[in-house]
């Protein structure tokens, strides 16, 4: 008889029109690190939300220490000692670290907070598990890595013994990931049982004892990680062999298409500068990647280049022409395409039909309008052409509501719209965010095809694998400055990580521009 702390037996959870979990069984041994692997939409998060009490399953049962329990809401989960670090941290930005840890489990006397008593307990936990924090710092001032340690301490403070980590490494630098792996090992050595959701095989191989693989809502199997190779795991996850390396030929850079000189941009919410004195260029036939941790000025840089935000000083040259003050429409007409970071905010009008979204950059052309009246037949014809060419799948073709489409197909729609008017420069911001392996492969092939067709590509990515595989030249951005220029062939992920964390910098601006 195995010693299981949590058993989820035959869990079934249905949403309208979708079986998110279909007879899934997951057994967590006491003190182990158990990975939950699967593509986006495979049902990992649903399963964990069932365990954390956010969803009620239609079928199956959950046992804690062999006894059946009913988890109605997160409070019940907390009482049972189950804690969760959400993918998006649940921290109040202008509270201190200490306030965030104790929130909801405060030590009080007569309603008044006893911060010093809480602080003592937090410091003890922090030392015992090697979780370095500054209790009085505000959340908005500390690094993502420390925010994650705060989330972990929140669970420990509540004496949780089952810890769920939902894609914990998505926002971290390689160094922070190593640190997190060590923390997880410490926690399991101290007797905590860990469930670790991920789709990154390296991490699972590095830290997990066992791994349960989900595919399309079904459980594919549970394996000992030590005896399974990366290829085995990915085959279980996707259902076919996946080529990890992206095939591409040597870049043949030509003329300079985009030239950025001494660009400064003021941030959206704060008065401080988000982009500081950035200069670089992109030539046709090459993919230049701006790598960096989220929130280091990438968004503002892109907004300035695409005309969504005003610049403070500096200039943007497009094929030698100054477009710093041009409108978005004029930039587009000159041949600038933009796959935005947030496809819902900047990419699509979700309540428009697919056809209307596809023609969004062209509706004013004579092909599609006459005297201000739109020729919808022409629009539909054009949409049908793109839908076929880019294999965009939706429930009812050109007239489908964009909101009802899957994320991957929404992204394909944007890619189709942006590539079809034959741009000279493509600015792609996190083009594969939240997409599964198959869709990522597709987008990557499209980007490389554009490069080989002589387009200039500026790629902004947070995914290190994507940066290393796709780019011909890497610029690292840290706190609004370009701190390094690297060649993907002669650098390592570790070195890249040091630049991204601000631990290393080289004065690239002068060298790179010789």
């Amino acid at each position: 008889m195995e010693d299981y702390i949590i058993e989820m037996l035959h869990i079934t959870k249905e949403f309208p029109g979708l079986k998110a979990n279909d007879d899934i069984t997951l057994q967590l041994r006491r003190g182990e690190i158990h990975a939950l692997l699967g593509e986006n939409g495979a049902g990992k998060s649903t399963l964990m939300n069932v365990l954390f009490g956010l969803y009620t399953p239609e079928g199956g049962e959950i046992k804690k220490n062999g006894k059946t329990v009913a988890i109605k809401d997160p409070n019940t989960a907390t009482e049972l000692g189950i804690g969760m670090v959400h993918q998006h941290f649940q921290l109040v930005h202008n509270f201190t670290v200490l306030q965030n840890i104790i929130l909801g489990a405060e030590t009080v006397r007569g309603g008044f907070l006893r911060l010093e008593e809480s602080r003592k307990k937090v410091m003890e936990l922090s030392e015992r598990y090697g979780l370095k924090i500054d209790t009085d710092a505000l959340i908005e001032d500390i690094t993502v890595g420390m925010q994650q340690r705060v989330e972990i301490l929140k669970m420990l403070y509540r004496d949780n013994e089952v810890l769920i980590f939902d894609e914990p490494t998505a926002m971290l630098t390689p160094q922070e990931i190593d640190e997190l792996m060590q923390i997880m090992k410490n926690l399991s050595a101290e007797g905590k049982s860990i469930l670790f959701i991920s789709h990154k095989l390296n991490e699972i191989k590095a830290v997990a004892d066992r791994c349960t693989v989900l595919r399309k809502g079904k459980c594919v199997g549970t394996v000992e990680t030590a005896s399974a190779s990366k290829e085995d795991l990915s085959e279980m996850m996707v259902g076919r062999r996946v080529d990890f390396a992206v095939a591409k030929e040597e870049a043949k850079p030509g003329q300079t298409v985009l030239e950025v000189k001494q660009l400064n941009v003021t941030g959206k919410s704060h008065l401080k500068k988000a982009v500081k004195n950035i200069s670089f260029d992109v030539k046709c036939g090459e993919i230049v990647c701006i790598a960096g941790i989220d929130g280091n000025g990438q968004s503002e840089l892109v907004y300035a280049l695409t005309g969504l935000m005003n610049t403070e000083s500096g200039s943007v040259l497009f094929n030698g022409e100054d477009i710093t003050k041009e409108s978005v429409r004029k930039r587009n007409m000159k041949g600038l395409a933009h796959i935005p970071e947030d496809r819902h905010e900047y990419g699509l009008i979700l309540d428009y039909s697919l056809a209307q979204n596809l023609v969004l950059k062209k509706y004013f052309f004579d092909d599609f309008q006459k005297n201000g009246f739109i020729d919808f037949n022409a629009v539909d014809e054009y949409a049908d052409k793109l839908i076929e060419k880019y294999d965009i799948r939706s429930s009812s073709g050109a007239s489908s509501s964009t909101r009802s489409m899957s994320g991957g197909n929404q992204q394909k729609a944007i890619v189709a719209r942006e590539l079809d008017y034959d741009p000279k420069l493509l600015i792609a911001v996190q083009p594969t965010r939240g997409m599964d392996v198959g869709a990522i492969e597709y987008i990557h092939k499209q980007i490389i095809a554009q490069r080989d067709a002589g387009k200039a590509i500026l790629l902004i990515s947070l995914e290190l694998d994507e940066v290393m595989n796709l780019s011909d030249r890497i610029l690292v951005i840290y706190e609004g400055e370009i701190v390094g220029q690297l060649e993907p062939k002669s650098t390592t992920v570790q070195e890249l990580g040091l630049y991204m964390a601000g631990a290393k910098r080289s004065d690239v601006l002068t060298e790179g521009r010789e």
Partner: protein
Amino acid sequence: MRIAADLLGSTILFGVPLLLVALGGMFAERSGVINLALEGIMIIGALAGCLFLRSANLGGWGVNSPQTAMFIAIIIAGVIGAVFSLLLSFAAINLKANQTIGGTALNQFAPAFAVVLTWAIQGQGQTSITIPTWVRITQANFGFAQSASPGFFENLIFKSFYLTTPIAFILLIASYVILYKTKLGLRLRSCGEHPQAAASVGISVYKMRYIGTTISGFLGGIGGLAFTVAAGSGFQSTVAGYGFLALAVMIFGNWKPLSIFGASMFFAFFKVISSYSGSIPFLPKFENITNSSYIYQCIPYVVTMLVLIFTSKRSQAPLAEGQPYDKGQR
């Protein structure tokens, strides 16, 4: 010196309603609900308080124990304000209605209801409820007579001293303590900044927002009575835009109790300057302009606009204010 004492005394007198109502707005917004209904809440609170004072006066016992009567009136104004604010809470929290529209609806309802009730009780055409003169705290309350030539402090304190003033200062300190030193305050603030985070640690966002809005209604109701008492001409179913001015005070005070105190006194000072402009010797008189008194009457509102223009960029509004909380959304 006489004028200085008058100015300072009046500043406090008119600053008190602003302070109370702005603190009320702060509690609601810190919990995540924009309380645009403060104007209406003030009217309803003042109505209830004034009706009580009227009946205490007519019953004859008010004049014998005036400050007890006033204290009860304050409590009634607060409680009725709190009850009235439940309408906003229900619409904004349970029904997830647009909070601006919900608040505006209450603002339109309140004066109309007050007029109807005033007439119903006092008879047709009786548009104002008179406030008994005994509510003012005088030297006699402290057991000494008015001096023949009152000095600076006597003028400052006793010219227009009502029980609402010391209570407002107590409530200011209590607000600070509740917001920053208690479990309730910590939880309330978390709901205004990041309700999902609060919910994830087992805090009931609905409950916290109800508490925030109800405190807001309580303070708003008392503020309404404090305004009516300060205005001096009885209850006339209006609070002259003080509810909205208080929102400006709250924003200028950056949603923080002590800054709100400073901001309310700042605004009250300009308000007083405008109404005292005729009797302040060093102010220019603009005698060649017709209706020159309007120039000074503009001042508080012009200052409000200027202040908001210059401070709104730096303001730290609660992140989740005005956003209905949806349990399913993560």
